[in-house]
């Protein structure tokens, strides 16, 4: 993000905190992709993800005064989304841990990649335990390094590294097994 953009976001935060609804709407539009994607991949359910993302922005509305900058806002959004998702999965462990809705799959398939492979990978990520899934999503969806992931999830950085390593190995192994099973 350039200095001007950061400045503009900072100004938006100030205006939203002062009660400017249009400024808050702009903040939501800017960050809805981040929050919604994390919620969707964590919960693997479109309706639940929509509800969770709305809750996160509702909490943001109430916490505007405590946020200092664009970077702080993004860090806050990631942390709140992940913790709320993990809490929800703990409260309702029977949430579907299944391949995502078809509409989402179609919407996120890349033009140049292998759609079937990507679909299979998303399904496998959705089957990881919640904490491991959170680590993988922050690493490969949000492109955070292990230290940033550790700060976001409030866990030791060595735990993040070991979970990443173990999850990658598991994903590769299951991908290989699935490929071998295809006639």
């Amino acid at each position, binding site marked *: 993000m350039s200095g001007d953009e950061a400045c503009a976001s900072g100004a938006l935060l100030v205006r939203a905190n002062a009660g400017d609804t249009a400024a808050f709407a702009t903040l939501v539009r800017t960050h809805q992709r981040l929050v*919604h994607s994390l919620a969707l991949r964590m919960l693997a359910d479109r309706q639940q*993800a929509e509800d969770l993302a709305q809750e996160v922005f*509702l909490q943001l*509305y*109430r916490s505007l005064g405590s946020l200092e900058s664009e970077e702080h806002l993004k860090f806050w959004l990631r942390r709140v989304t992940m913790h709320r998702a993990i809490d929800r999965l703990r409260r309702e462990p029977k949430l579907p841990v299944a391949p995502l809705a078809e509409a989402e799959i179609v919407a996120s398939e890349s033009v140049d990649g292998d759609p079937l492979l*990507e679909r299979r990978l*998303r399904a496998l990520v959705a089957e990881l335990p919640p904490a491991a899934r959170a680590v993988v999503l922050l690493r*490969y969806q949000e492109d955070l390094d292990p230290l940033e992931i550790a700060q976001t999830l409030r866990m030791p950085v060595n735990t993040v590294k070991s979970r990443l390593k173990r999850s990658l190995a598991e994903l590769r192994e299951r991908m290989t097994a699935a490929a071998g099973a295809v006639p």
Partner: protein
Amino acid sequence: MSDHDFERQLRAALKPVNPGADFTARVLTRIAAEEPARRVRMPRSPAMAGWLGFGLAASVVVAALLAHQWQVRRIEQGREARRQLIEALRVTDEKLDLAYRVVNAQPHAATSPNPGA
């Protein structure tokens, strides 16, 4: 497949996706529906927070002083009640003593010789 390729595929598979249309409008509607009831916000400036803390501490001190005064008053009331009880017992004792003496004196007067008989 190399580690690098696998990670690249994972990144491609996990590309962020947009929520449905009108997501922002739905968020604003929900805020409008839920916020009025919870509109109470704590003061945000450090100065106001400081005054709030001072006020809270002062309230605690005043409450402690009032509780102490109430306790002292109860002890004093107990002492006063004890004093009144002792006084009442003393008066009763005197009356009983007087009555005893009167009762004892009457038989003595009745058995004495009547000078007029």
